[in-house]
């Protein structure tokens, strides 16, 4: 299989970690098998397998893992911090919803929704990815707000503020497996990209875009490809979410806090790492599920405070705190932004 180390490539720089690497691999494998078995082994009193609420919560977590990893591809690897990433979620959700309203079956509608998200990413990325730094971030925030209003206004197609109802379909194990597999695929893709020349060029763009361009990296093509890949998977999650929720309206789908969550999760885990965003997503999801749901009124407030706390006090995230053990050497999109605040002084 392609996921094993290819012998042709001496494992990039680091040599003496093979044992730790195997341990990590085995732990990961056990974890994945356990996740696959959960629907079979959990029984909750008074709930059938199909309505099992634990599965529903896991499904939410898998979606967040996928979304955070997507965000990290542009925000972490490429260094383009996207404050409107949830717009692709919305395009995917509405694409799927609208097509299903026209009688399409779910699988083709889902795929088409993701393709819409990609097309949208190309359209919007072409002007916005020319912008740097905060200008890009704000332009994406603007795209997001604008798209919500456009959806609200286009009543004929989207149902406007009233929203769209999708054919109801309660099958939690199905969504569980779909989102689990999607999350595994996405994390795998990110891992692969990080090892590839494509991923290395993204990091080069983050570190010095002008220099990268002069050294022959087609920066525009690379940026927009990364953007489109992220949009594709985000669109898929959007479509899955829409079908699972059976109802979408502009305020449910285009919700600012979704982007905030993704930024927060990626940062908590470690920006620009493969393992960081999933870790961050899982941590925040379960913290919320276990602790904050008891304080519903305050939970967004707490998230704002946590975001500030992470930025000021743990800028390198969990992966940064763990050191360089994931084998990536780029937890530090940061330090460039933070001006060396995360420890290492800049020369």
């Amino acid at each position, binding site marked *: 299989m392609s996921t094993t180390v290819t012998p042709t490539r001496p494992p*990039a720089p680091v040599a003496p970690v093979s044992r730790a690497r195997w341990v990590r691999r085995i732990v990961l494998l056990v974890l994945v098998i356990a996740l696959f078995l959960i629907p079979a082994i959990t029984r909750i009193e008074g709930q059938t397998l199909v309505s099992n609420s634990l599965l529903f919560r896991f499904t939410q977590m898998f979606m967040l893992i996928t979304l955070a990893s997507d965000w990290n591809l542009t925000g972490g690897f490429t260094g383009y911090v996207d404050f409107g990433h949830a717009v692709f979620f919305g395009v995917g959700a509405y694409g799927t919803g609208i097509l299903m309203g026209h009688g399409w079956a779910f699988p083709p509608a889902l795929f088409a929704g993701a393709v819409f998200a990609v097309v949208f990413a190309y359209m919007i990325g072409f002007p916005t990815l020319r912008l740097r730094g905060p200008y890009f971030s704000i332009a994406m925030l603007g795209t997001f707000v604008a798209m919500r209003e456009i959806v609200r206004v286009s009543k004929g197609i989207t149902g406007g503020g009233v929203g769209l109802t999708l054919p109801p379909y309660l099958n939690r194990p199905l969504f569980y497996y779909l989102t689990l597999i999607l999350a595994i695929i996405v994390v795998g893709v990110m891992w692969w990209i990080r090892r590839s020349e494509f991923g290395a060029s993204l990091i080069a763009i983050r570190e010095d875009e002008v220099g990268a361009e*002069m050294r022959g990296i*087609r920066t525009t093509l690379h940026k927009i490809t990364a953007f489109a890949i992220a949009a594709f998977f985000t669109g898929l999650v959007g479509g899955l979410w829409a079908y699972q929720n059976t109802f979408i309206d502009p305020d449910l789908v285009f919700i600012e806090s979704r982007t905030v969550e993704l930024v927060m999760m990626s940062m908590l885990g470690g920006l620009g790492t493969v393992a960081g965003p999933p870790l961050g997503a899982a941590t925040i999801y379960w913290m919320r599920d276990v602790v904050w749901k008891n304080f519903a009124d305050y939970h967004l407030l707490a998230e704002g405070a946590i975001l500030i706390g992470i930025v000021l006090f743990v800028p390198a995230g969990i992966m940064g705190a763990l050191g360089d053990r994931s084998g990536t050497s780029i937890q530090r999109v940061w330090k460039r932004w933070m001006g060396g605040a995360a420890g290492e002084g800049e020369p």
Partner: protein
Amino acid sequence: MTVVRDPSVKPLLEGRGVTKRFGGLVAVQSVDFAVYPQEMVGLIGPNGSGKTTLFDCLSRVQSIDEGRVLFKGIDITSKKPHSVAHLGMARTFQVIRVYRKLTVLENMLVSRQWRGETIWSQLRPSQADTEERARELINFLSLEHLTLEPAGTLSGGQRRLLELGMALMPDPDLILLDEAASGVNPTLVETIKDRIRRLNEERGKAFLIVEHDMRFISDLCTRVYVLNYGEKLAEGTPEEVMEDEAVIEAYFGT
């Protein structure tokens, strides 16, 4: 012109009336120049005479207001920076631009040649031969003990060498060196000089070199252009240029 040349050899890089303005200031004024295959050409001039600006125009990070630049006979006057790099022109920078958070090896790998590649082909991990080439160049530049260090931890001179390596990675035909020896200790300067000479002799690379240190230029180059206030003041062999009245006046003032 004192340098005798076979007229059938076409120049590798040729500029005709290259002009660059910043607002009212003319940074480069109607400069003609040529670099022939396997030649080492120097570009000197006092501070602010437009050398780096000219380099920036050649590698296309600055637009060219007037004139044309041909590389291998292809007009690159309005090409994008990466296309110029793909054609086989590489450069180093006066202000060092290495990717500090990547290791020396990764820096080299990222700088390999992308010519004609699709994104799909880049989604593979680095090929063994690419890495072999990178390691070979790192050895050539005597940086092998630093292969796995982040470039940010290297000294200024080591970074200059790394930059040279990054420029060589795509196997270019012409390399523009911008102050390759500034801020470098004398032993390393000798290393850099030696490597440049060997690259020219053994691998047939052409160089266009901006440098303040006249000895560096006269040791390496066969021909020199002198810029002053954006205009071409003189050209010739290093010896001729150094005896030129106008050049002496530009450097030492009146």
